[in-house]
């Protein structure tokens, strides 16, 4: 029986059988594989988090600036603001549980699960690459570097807007919730001290609202960057958050 394929491709018999693989494809395939970065709990957390934060932003905005008054039924049977606030509080509770779950996973998961919680500020190379990534975004370098985890700019954004930002929203959010839950309740015991310290709840509301806008700004940039990097960088991003695997588009080492 004659061998239809060049001998060095033997190992990739299966791919060859699909028919449309060119020799070049097979050459790359041989060198590249993927790195498993985001484990399932991190991925689930990410998408649940994205969903509840969207709910929190929309309902939170409407808590401060409510919808136009509606006359659907007698006040007894109408609960528009009530449902909006309920959705906010429910999402806030899921966010809180999820965040603690994520912290737990930072301990038991892989190294990449820990990246979001610390900044390597003493690492000179990290600073160098932060500037490098910034220059990539300012069109000053031709291509970015490759990263298994977050790139330094994404890393810094995650740390400040998410790790610290979500903590801030949880702290102020639970302090607000404690006001409704009442003195002596569990949220009050846990977070009521914050209002005692800040003084006026109006300030607490406004700090919480400022926090919302910072998170809106993060999400805008984050989603844009995720999509852009998926297309323009040397590695996968969106699919990484879906499958957990980071794939690279070239095989140069850095």
């Amino acid at each position, binding site marked *: 029986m004659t061998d239809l394929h060049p001998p060095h491709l033997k190992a990739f018999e299966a791919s060859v059988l699909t028919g449309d693989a060119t020799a070049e494809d097979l050459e790359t395939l041989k060198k590249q594989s993927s790195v498993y970065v985001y484990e399932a709990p991190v991925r689930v957390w990410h998408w649940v988090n994205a969903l509840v934060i969207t709910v929190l932003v929309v309902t939170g905005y409407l808590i401060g600036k409510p919808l136009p008054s*509606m006359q659907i039924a007698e006040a007894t049977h109408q609960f528009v603001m009530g449902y909006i606030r309920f959705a906010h509080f429910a999402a806030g509770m899921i966010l809180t549980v999820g965040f603690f779950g994520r912290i737990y996973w930072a301990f038991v998961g892989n190294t990449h699960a820990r990246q979001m919680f610390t900044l390597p500020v003493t690492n000179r190379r990290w600073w160098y690459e932060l500037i490098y990534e910034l220059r990539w975004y300012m069109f000053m370098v031709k291509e970015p570097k490759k990263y298994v985890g977050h790139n330094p700019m994404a890393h810094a954004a995650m740390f400040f807007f998410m790790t610290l930002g979500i903590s801030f929203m949880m702290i102020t959010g639970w302090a607000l919730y404690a006001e409704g839950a009442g003195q002596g309740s569990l949220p009050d015991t846990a977070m009521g*001290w914050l209002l005692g310290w800040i003084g*006026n*709840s*109006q300030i*607490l509301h406004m*700090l919480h609202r400022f926090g*919302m*806008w910072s998170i809106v700004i993060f999400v805008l*940039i984050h989603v844009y960057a995720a999509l852009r990097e998926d297309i323009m960088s040397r590695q996968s991003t969106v699919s990484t958050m879906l499958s957990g695997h980071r794939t690279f588009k070239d095989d140069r080492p850095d």
Partner: protein
Amino acid sequence: MTQIETFYEVMRKQGITRRSFMKYCALTASALGLGPAFVPKIAHAMETKPRTPVIWVSGLECTCCSESFIRGAHPLAKDVVLSMISLDYNHTLMASAGHAAEAALEETIQKYKGNYILAVEGNPPLNEDGMFCIVGGKPFVEQLKHAAKDAKAIISWGACASYGCVQAAHPNPTRATPVHKVITDKPIIKVPGCPPIAEVMTGVITYMLTFDRLPELDRQGRPAMFYGQRIHDKCYRRPHFDAGQFVEHWDDDNARKGYCLYKMGCKGPTTYNACSTVRWNEGTSFPIQSGHGCIGCSEDGFWDQGSFYDRVTNLNVFGIEANADKLGMGAAGAVGGAIAVHAAVSALKRAQKKQEKVEG
């Protein structure tokens, strides 16, 4: 000490009957949220305890606290409480004036050393050595410190003594300072409001006189029984809030229907006070019932929380006047615009690169 009359004796001297006295005890118990079992306890305490004198001093203030106080809803309660308080020294109510008044204050302090309650209306300004408020030829802050030294406890009446109120509003040119920041070594109870509700004032003072201790305080040092909940928690318009039915403009149809005043800037959701339950002027009404939102008068720094008529207010938190929505929306808009431009440039660059590849 033994010569000092008991509360009961004082009341009888004022012509209050035994029957009225018992009524008063029952009324006080219910005002303080205590069960019927406490009525005889209060009566017993009043019959056996020597009355506790109260010295009432005034700093930077508008006298609205005194005015509120003497308008207690139940005339009996008011008379009783007034008779229990030493009126030897109270600018508004005392008979004497000038040197005689200052001498009376000194006498009371000496006579009841360590045993009197100091009620403070208003606050001391500290700039220029306190010269912005002079009482009896001396800065008020000196009188305050002097009177506080031998006091058993201090009551901070109203927003002024508790938090500073309008004279302490930004930029606070006289450095008007709440009492607890000047006197730090005495138990202080804050009874904020501009003014506080009369029944709240008499309730607090009665509690302290009968039980010889401060009522249970919350984290900010206010009596929890009156300041434990927000206006919003007990507001009778709350069902309209939950329904999402709001007054949109003054005097619109929703205003006539008595909808929630949230969009008109009501500060009920951020204000701890008893207005929505105790109400004002003998329980007649309170601001929200009259169609105007709460302005948050019993809250720390209520003059500096932006407009009374906005819910999302300007705040001076970052040293500049900032509104979360204006600033946030502006920033988000700018970021959105920048992203659009960045995306366009990115697409262009990418197209260029492809072109180069094809040509090269």
